[in-house]
């Protein structure tokens, strides 16, 4: 079925590349993999452009496919026997040293991103869509094709876990700062 909406693919890339790349990056914790996912997602969008009804539909479609491709990528890595969580923490820890990756971000923001990588995949997905994309639980459920109750549960548990981890790390951070300033 053809729709009246005639999008310019290049404009769609311009408009949504940051969203797609950020979602993939926060889900995989790997910059190179996130770029690959973003490329694949946009090329798939190009193939399916005839089925997209509107700009809002394109945005929804991109979020949904990005989350799905990121989950596939994580699954493939697990199958290959990579200890993802250890690797992701390593990647994020290593990147904390790279100022270019966290340019313009405060120390707490950097720490929060690192802590996000330590959450289980489903909780991470819900929190990224909630706080990066400002989606409601209903919209997250539609994007992830999951029951609303499950999404709410992931949001609650994820937020609780992230909050407790952040409190612990924040106390350590404040202690370190006091120690450094004291010296």
């Amino acid at each position, binding site marked *: 079925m053809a729709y009246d909406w005639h999008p310019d693919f290049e404009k769609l890339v311009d408009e949504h590349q940051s969203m797609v790349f950020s979602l993939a990056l*926060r889900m995989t914790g790997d910059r190179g993999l996130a770029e690959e996912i*973003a490329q694949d997602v946009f090329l798939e969008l190009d193939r399916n452009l005839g089925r997209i009804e509107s700009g809002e539909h394109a945005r929804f479609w991109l979020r949904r496919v990005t989350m799905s491709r990121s989950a596939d990528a994580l699954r493939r890595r697990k199958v290959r026997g990579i200890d993802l969580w250890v690797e992701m923490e390593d990647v994020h820890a290593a990147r904390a040293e790279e100022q270019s990756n966290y340019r313009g*971000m405060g120390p707490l923001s950097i720490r929060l991103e690192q802590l996000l990588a330590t959450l289980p995949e489903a909780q991470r997905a819900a*929190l990224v869509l909630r*706080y*990066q994309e*400002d989606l409601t639980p209903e919209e997250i459920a539609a994007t992830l094709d999951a029951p609303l109750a499950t999404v709410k549960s992931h949001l609650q548990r994820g*937020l609780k876990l992230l909050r407790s981890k952040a409190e612990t790390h924040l106390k350590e951070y404040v202690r370190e700062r006091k120690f450094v300033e004291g010296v």
Partner: protein
Amino acid sequence: MREFDAMNFEPGDEFERELQQAFARRPAPPSLKRRIMEKRRGPQLLPPFLTWQRLAASIALTAVLAGGVQWRIVEERRREESARRQVLMALRITGHALNQMNARLAAHSRGAQD
């Protein structure tokens, strides 16, 4: 501290505001769009006339190279033949000179005997 604020659409407390700030979208790498557009275009195929031009140029180049090699072989053979002739001529002259010398020596020894 309120918990489960993620249920509300608006950020509930300082921590959630911090989360929103921390999870702001990151700029995509500058090369991402270029790579997407290149992949979208796919491998570039040459137009047919360019293919024929390339083929003709290859044949011409091969012919020129083969001609050059052939000319070099012929030229080497010509030089070898010329050198061989010169050596034969030198041998002939030397033989002729030796024969003359031999004849003179023979005449000289006959005169001495007489």
